[in-house]
């Protein structure tokens, strides 16, 4: 037995390229899966930790409408509602500018009432907590009586170079504010330390002043008992609160916010799995090749009495060696890669969903274990077919290759049929609405395409044979004929390459289509000339507000013809916050900005301006099932109200979707005169840049407003788009890398294996130059075949991702765009790798004397 393994080892050692590249293929696949897993887990963990830190032990939260809850609500809750455990919170975000030695950062400002905190946030210490060993208490006097006094985590203060008593400046709500560090927090356990690293704790009074929220609180945290007593308390609390406020379970808030990113995370995971699938195909290719290559040797072994089981074990054992090596490397590389990816993932989450900052990569063993299982599993699974194949070698040495090839060609129709079946099955799996099932369908489609690749290769070669003959003479025909003649090796290689390349095509086409759709949408939706917005954190749920009187002053400026206002607010609801967009001002300035998917535009607008009607965006409609004719329930300041949906409009600003309402309707139900921004239409011939300057000079000076021309806003929007898709592009690049290595390794192995054949040709008088030509044209041909076949497969993948996966994940319609650049890139990738793969074997063959090559075996 040891002899068997030793011969196997020698085989591996004699083909270092083949197996080395297979190891790299597995490693890359595993690394991508692991790194995406780690990045997702880290972002999620950071979010959970920080939201737990902010929520504390609250069981319920009282939340209000756009303007929050009036100060008085807390007193009524405590004094009239008799709720003992209640803590008011004012929260927001402040930006700490960069200074030497400490980078810019965003801090979560948490304004609390220290007297109510006791049962809630343990790291803030409780009223009854007293001071523990090694802890000094914060001087509550200055914290409460000195405006701008704040508390930071000790580590954060150190990073910012601050000592207690020192002042520093932050930007909050667009204005510079001076804060004083009154003390630092150093919780004992590491989780809490991490969770509060970005927390800036203040007394609620200072927080109201810094965030410009005088008279209003953002929420009231409650701890209510379970059971009947809790139900009674809940009823008392509800009775004491104003009608605009509602009480929601605290766990729901974290959960619904986390739900928002679920589709995003699932998509990333699926894309990373695609990379692993590429890797698995590579393994399949390598192992099949090694079996085919050693068919004679295996036959001899069988004749010598080695059992089928032993042969099976041998092939799987070799695969296992590749798997273990590749997976081990992949895990290490995954952790390294994860460090880079976590920043990209976090950036996207910040742009699209909510602010979260990840200071470090969490490496949960479960993610690593999953990566290891996937790596080992995919490799062994890929090696299973070749291993079975190996056991079927008859126990005699003299089986002719030609028999094998003939048998394979006979089985082509069967393989193709199986491919068609898989395609049909995959297509069927795309029909149910479940995202996970859709992804299964996507993978089935990929596998089906892979099985169709050999037939397609034969067809393609048959088609190319004549033109190649005309172009390169005998060598051309030999090259094309050779691909078909050794189909047992080439078919698998081409199939693997097609899959790898098509993944990059699919992702590339999807991103391009999405981007083009967004560009078109921006053209339509950003038709005003100048935009003024309150500075707000990216991806924020509104919040920041402008004085509506600014609009009058802006419209009075020369060159301004009119415009519209916009107010973005989040209305809390039991199923998570509903984003409400309120449009006000000149209807002519607004109506041209929307294109409808559902509803009659002639009726939509009059109804929207007059009655209790709303529009919903496409993602909102597909997420909630709302559509023209249905209603949306919103908690107004007078309690719950149902609003009629009159239309569904295209929108790509938020995958959570928005509800659009007219200003008059909004003001009937909410007492909130403020606006988030406004857009100005200029008189014909007016220079937008001049108007922007004038605006900056008149109103911009008072508060740091973002004043932008149409052009720069479009530019910024696309920058954000590109930033959010950076992670996807990186995944595409990694899949491309796997593909490249796949092409390189399989073709190089193929050609190296032909040493003897080429030796014969050399002995028969072929010049080294002709060998070069034959080898490179054959690899080039295979590269071309892989590249060409990957285009339809890639476009199929893109179509599935655009019309099924994206639609289901984010709910928007994307128009598929065929960008020649992406297609050309795919061809170039395949060709370049193929030609590169031919270089070394051609060089080696051309230099080796024919006699030596013939003697080799």
């Amino acid at each position, binding site marked *: 037995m040891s002899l068997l393994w030793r011969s196997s080892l020698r085989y591996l050692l004699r083909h270092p390229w083949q197996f080395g590249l297979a190891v790299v293929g597995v490693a890359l696949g595993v690394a991508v899966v692991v790194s995406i897993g780690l990045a997702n887990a880290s972002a999620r963990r950071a979010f959970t930790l920080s939201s737990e830190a902010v929520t504390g032990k609250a069981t319920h939260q009282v939340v209000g409408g756009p303007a929050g809850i009036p100060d008085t609500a807390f007193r009524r809750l405590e004094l009239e509602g008799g709720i003992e455990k209640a803590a008011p919170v004012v929260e927001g975000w402040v930006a700490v500018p960069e200074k030497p030695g400490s980078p810019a950062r965003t801090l979560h400002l948490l304004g609390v009432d220290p007297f109510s905190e006791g049962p809630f946030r343990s*790291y803030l*210490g409780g009223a009854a907590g007293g001071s523990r060993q090694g802890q000094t*208490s914060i001087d509550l006097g200055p914290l409460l009586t000195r405006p701008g006094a704040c508390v930071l985590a000790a580590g954060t203060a150190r990073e910012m170079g601050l000592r207690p008593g020192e002042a520093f400046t932050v930007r909050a709500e667009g204005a510079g504010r001076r804060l004083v560090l009154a003390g630092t927090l150093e919780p004992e356990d590491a989780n809490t330390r991490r969770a509060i690293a970005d927390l800036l704790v203040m007394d609620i009074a200072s927080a109201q002043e810094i965030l410009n929220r005088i008279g209003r609180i953002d929420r009231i945290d409650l701890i209510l008992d379970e059971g009947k007593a809790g139900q009674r308390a809940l009823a008392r609390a509800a009775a004491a609160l104003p009608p605009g406020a509602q009480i929601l379970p605290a766990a729901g808030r974290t959960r619904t916010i986390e739900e928002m990113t679920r589709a995003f995370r699932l998509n990333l995971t699926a894309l990373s799995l695609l990379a692993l699938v590429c890797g698995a195909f590579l393994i399949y290719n390598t192992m099949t090749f090694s079996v085919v290559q050693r068919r004679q040797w295996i036959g001899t072994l069988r004749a010598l009495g080695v059992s089928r089981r032993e042969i099976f074990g041998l092939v799987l054992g070799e695969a296992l060696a590749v798997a273990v090596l590749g997976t081990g490397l992949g895990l290490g590389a995954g952790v390294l890669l994860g460090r880079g990816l976590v920043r990209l993932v976090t950036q996207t989450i910040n742009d699209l969903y909510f602010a979260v900052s990840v200071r470090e990569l969490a490496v949960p063993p479960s993610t690593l274990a999953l990566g290891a299982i996937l790596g080992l599993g995919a490799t062994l699974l890929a090696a299973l077919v070749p291993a079975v194949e190996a056991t079927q070698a008859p126990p005699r040495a003299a089986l002719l290759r030609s028999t094998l090839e003939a048998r394979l060609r006979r089985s082509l129709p069967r393989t193709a049929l199986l491919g068609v079946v898989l395609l049909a099955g995959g297509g069927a799996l795309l029909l149910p609405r479940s995202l996970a099932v859709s992804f299964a369908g996507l993978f089935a489609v990929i596998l089906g395409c892979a099985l169709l690749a050999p037939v397609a290769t034969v067809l393609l070669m048959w088609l190319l044979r004549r033109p190649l003959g005309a172009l390169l003479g005998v060598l051309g025909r030999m090259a094309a004929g050779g691909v078909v003649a050794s189909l047992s090796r080439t078919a698998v290689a081409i199939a693997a390459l097609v899959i790898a390349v098509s993944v990059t095509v699919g992702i590339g086409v999807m991103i391009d289509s999405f981007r083009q759709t967004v560009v078109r949408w921006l053209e339509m939706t950003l038709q005003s000339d100048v935009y003024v917005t309150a500075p707000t954190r990216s991806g924020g749920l509104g919040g920041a507000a402008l004085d509506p009187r600014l609009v009058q002053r802006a419209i009075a400026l020369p060159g301004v013809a009119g415009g519209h206002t916009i107010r973005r607010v989040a209305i809390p609801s039991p199923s998570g916050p509903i984003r409400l967009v309120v449009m006000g001002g000149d209807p002519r300035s607004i109506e041209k900005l929307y294109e409808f998917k559902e509803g009659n535009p002639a009726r939509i607008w009059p109804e929207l301006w007059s009655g209790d009607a709303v529009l919903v965006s496409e993602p909102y409609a597909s997420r909630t099932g709302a559509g023209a004719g249905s209603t949306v329930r919103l908690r107004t300041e007078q309690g719950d109200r149902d609003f009629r949906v009159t239309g569904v409009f295209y929108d790509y600003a938020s995958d959570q979707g928005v509800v659009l309402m007219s200003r008059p309707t909004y003001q009937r139900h909410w007492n909130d005169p403020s606006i988030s921004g406004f857009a100005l239409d200029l008189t014909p011939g007016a220079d937008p840049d001049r108007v922007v300057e004038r605006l900056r000079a008149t109103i911009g000076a008072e508060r740091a407003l973002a004043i932008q021309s149409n052009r720069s806003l479009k530019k910024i929007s696309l920058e954000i788009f590109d930033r959010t898709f950076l992670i996807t592009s990186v995944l595409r690049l990694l899949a491309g890398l796997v593909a490249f290595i796949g092409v390189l390794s399989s073709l190089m192995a193929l050609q190296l294996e032909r040493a003897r054949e080429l030796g014969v040709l050399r002995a028969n008088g072929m010049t080294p130059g002709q060998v070069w030509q034959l080898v490179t044209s054959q690899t080039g041909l295979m590269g071309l075949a892989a590249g060409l076949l990957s285009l339809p497969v890639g476009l199929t993948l893109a179509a599935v991702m655009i019309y099924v996966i994206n639609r289901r994940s984010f709910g928007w319609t994307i128009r598929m765009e065929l960008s020649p650049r992406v297609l050309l890139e795919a061809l170039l990738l395949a060709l370049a790798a193929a030609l590169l793969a031919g270089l070394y074997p051609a060089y080696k063959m051309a230099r080796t004397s024919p006699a030596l090559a013939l003697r080799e075996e």
Partner: protein
Amino acid sequence: MIRNWIGLLLSGLILLACREQPSLPHASLSVAGALRTSSDQGYAKALAPREFHFPADHGPHPEFRTEWWYYTGNLATAEGRRFGFQLTFFRSALAPTAPERASAWATRQAWLAHFTVSDVAGKRFHSFERWSRGAVGLAGAQGEPFRVWVKDWTAEGAPVFPMRLRAAEGETAVDLLLQEGKPPVLQGERGLSRKGAEPGDASYYYSLTRMPTSGTVRVDGQSFTVTGDSWMDREWSTSSLGRDQVGWDWLALQLSDGWDVMLYRLRRADGSADPTSSGTLIAPDGSSRPLHLADFQLEGSGEWRSPRSGARYPARWRVRVPGEEVDLDVRPLLADQELDVSFRYWEGAVSIEGTHHGRPVRGQGYVELTGYAAPPRRQVR
């Protein structure tokens, strides 16, 4: 009366558990431990006797650092089931002055309230605590009409008497009406009560020693109609305890012959009584006579050991005022009347037997014992 140590904790004393820390001091926002020693500067001080004006002086004196409204009382149902109660409101300034602020939550006043019920028959002692800031109507005090409140625990007058006390937490509650009894008694030297040798180590202190009380007490969800007598202490100061004082024993006694006795002994670290320890004897007509340390004897005996803190408290007292022929045996109605709140202390209802002017008397009252459990150490920085 001296509930100073709570006032001290509120106004500045801190239990610094750690040694000198060269690095950044880390901390918690713990309210109880957090109110740090700060200088007396900027606050008014009790330096000399002053004129008292009622009902204005029932209201707050924010220019002083600390202030309290301290109600205790003994109650019983018609069937004779006995209850004791304590409802106290403490105000403590966090700073002598504060800038104008835009936010209504801004304040320089911190409030604390304690509420206890001693259920003698049920052998249960219930104690609760509440903190609040003195802003947005959560806690505060006013003279006319009289009102002091921390959240929904309140004492309010219409405009002064009767005073209605209301407090509830879980299944424990009181709702009591206090009638005007004896007039206010100015303690110490015309209301100036000295607590230490330094000038300013004193408070302004008056008491309403006997207010006929009726209402309801609820324990374990069951309501009882009760009557009895309550006692209120009002005190405000900026600095009061002397440096070497570790605690005190304080007694408020209502005798069956209509006389009331207030006594406190300030205990020093060496076990001796501080010379400023004193008391007052109040006649049925409300007239009073100050007692100095030499005028009375207060002997503790027995011992009750707290299962929570391990602290050992005296469990019985003998009170003698030889000049007034007072000789009283004071016993707790329940052994365990230790408050399990931010600061542990014993404050409970007591019963009295003894003689006054040669005749046997009975009585009831309240005793406060501090400095037995983890005595507050004062560390001036």
